[in-house]
């Protein structure tokens, strides 16, 4: 696996874009104009960026309620995403989807289901159509909570039996809202279950974008080659509320020590540490990227807020309801 400068910068930009967008959502959320539930990707960006940076634009993706990073890392249009959060007709789904259902056909981001496991069967079908045309593949993201659902196992069996080119990526943050994996799956080794279906499955540290990238690239190459499914179980930490604008907290799950540990291992931090230790010459370029991304995020939100205000002025929409408690 050659990790050249460009690739490292791409991985960094990809993660940072997702991070900055999510952080900005938090900043803006109290204005109560992003009127919908937000399931942030903060802490988990390494997975989306690692996996999707190793994909072609013609590869397809489907996702879950927590789809911000997937959409962005697949190359989804960022201003259109922000407009979508503001419910604008210029949003990627013309205001129909919102935060949980980002969709950008142009880059083969085929949508996100807010029903657990719901997009998994779609991945099977997308892969079937791709297989008939060439060697593109489909990546299906699913949370560990989604792997409680029977349809996940139906899909493992179906893709293995029909020979469908799907890479399932399990984002294992060990949480389903506040319920830990250990309370939901007596045998919490998801990769072991997958292997029972005769499918190659690999665990990876989801907080290490470089490791994710290289594992994913290898698996994707295999999927392309033999049109058989693979599963990547990426272990990570959710550094935000399940839903709502609360970040860098763990809620009921774990104390200060644990938070510190997790913050230390979060993917951007891990990446910067790696670069500092291994190729410090990149840091300048990274800073430039950072500025560019910040500017792009600024501009996207500024535009969206302007359009939102204009739209609001034209309607007699009632005041938004008071905030609900975030589910950390």
């Amino acid at each position, binding site marked *: 696996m050659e990790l050249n400068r460009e690739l490292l910068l791409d991985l960094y930009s990809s993660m940072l874009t997702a991070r900055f967008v999510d952080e900005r959502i938090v900043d803006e959320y109290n204005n109560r104009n992003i009127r919908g539930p937000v399931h942030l990707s903060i802490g988990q960006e390494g997975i989306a960026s690692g996996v999707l940076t190793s994909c072609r634009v013609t590869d397809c993706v489907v996702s879950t309620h927590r789809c911000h990073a997937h959409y962005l890392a697949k190359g989804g249009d960022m201003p259109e995403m922000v407009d979508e959060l503001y419910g604008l007709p210029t949003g990627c789904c013309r205001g129909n989807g919102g935060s949980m259902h980002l969709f950008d056909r142009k880059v083969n981001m085929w949508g996100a289901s807010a029903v657990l496991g719901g997009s998994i069967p779609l991945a099977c*079908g997308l892969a079937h159509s791709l297989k008939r045309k060439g060697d593109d593949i489909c990546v299906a993201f699913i949370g560990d909570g989604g792997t409680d659902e029977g349809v996940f196992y139906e899909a493992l069996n179906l893709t293995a*039996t*029909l020979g469908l080119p799907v890479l399932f990526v399990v984002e294992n943050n060990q949480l389903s809202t506040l319920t830990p994996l250990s309370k939901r799956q007596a045998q919490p080794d998801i990769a072991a279950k997958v292997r029972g279906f005769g499918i190659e499955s690999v665990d990876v540290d989801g907080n290490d974008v470089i490791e994710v990238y290289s594992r994913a690239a290898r698996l994707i190459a295999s999927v392309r080659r033999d049109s058989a499914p693979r599963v990547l179980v990426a272990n990570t930490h959710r550094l935000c509320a399940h839903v709502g604008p609360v970040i860098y907290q763990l809620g009921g799950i774990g104390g200060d020590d644990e938070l510190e540990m997790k913050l230390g291992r979060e993917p951007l931090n891990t990446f910067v540490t790696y670069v500092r230790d291994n190729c410090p010459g990149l840091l300048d370029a990274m800073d430039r990227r950072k500025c560019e991304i910040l500017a792009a995020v600024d501009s996207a939100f500024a535009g969206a807020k302007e359009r939102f205000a204009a739209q609001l002025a034209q309607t007699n929409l009632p005041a938004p309801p008071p905030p609900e408690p975030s589910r950390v």
Partner: protein
Amino acid sequence: MQVSFGEAIRLATVQVMEADSGAFVYGEGINDPGGFFGTTVGLIDQFGEDRCFDVPNSEECLTGFAVGASLLGAHPLFVNLRADFLLLAMNQIVNHAAKWPTMSGGQCNVPIVIRAIVGREWGQAAQHSGAYHALFAHVPGIDVLVPSTVKNAAGLLISAFQSERPSIMFESKLLYTLNDDLSLPIQPLPIGKGEIVREGTDLTMIAVSEQVHFAGQVADDLAKKGIQAEVLDLQCVQPIDSELIIESVAKTRRVAVFDIGWTGFGLSSEVARIVCESGAGPLRSRMISSGQERQHTPASCFREYEHYPLLDKVVTQLVESMG
């Protein structure tokens, strides 16, 4: 050409598959020599395992599989041996197939076709006799087809394949005994259009699927009593041909519905709503709703017989209602 109901469906499928390389067919046990009442016989031989294939028993995944394939332009047909099994796929049909086009803001279509057979007779019992078209008709974004003849089954299936929306076709098992002329190539039928299959002035009888034939018998009996019933064959329950219903009821000012399913929160209810909202009428008589009894289908032949509409009983009921 004289063909059976099953053969008509098969011919429509073949016609589509020959014209459209993106069309493919699958179902649990599709290789069965019986070929799902003859509807899938020979497809594998003609089109290969690539375009007609057997699958694991995984209805939910298989339904979403169709959705996914269709996003990239394929036209999948998922055949189900019983409509009861669609209940396992409800989440994919309602939460995904029906919603994806809207949720994406129009970035995609979901041109899938689902066929489902509605069991009846020979002890199908509670879990193999469900006629669940009303459930799907409630949900926006799904076309729900309920053919009644060799011709309209074939025509509707062609249209379902050509449509950009998800379609479910419910086929009553009783219809497989029908034979009729069918000329090739099969012409598509407009989805959402019903047909007057018998003209009359005293009473509008609205029917679907095999109940169209039952309604015909009822109309024969009524005619002997001097009552001229108009019989409408809806062919689709979603979209439903409100115009046809309203026009006929405005004329007869009496309405009866002949459904293959339960009446409550069903087709009878929907027809009543259309009538009441239209202001057509006012009705001269109480509306009569005929369908499965409001209970679960018993296995026993003695009990099943009474579970479905009986000619004499319905005729009496209608005559009484007309005072």
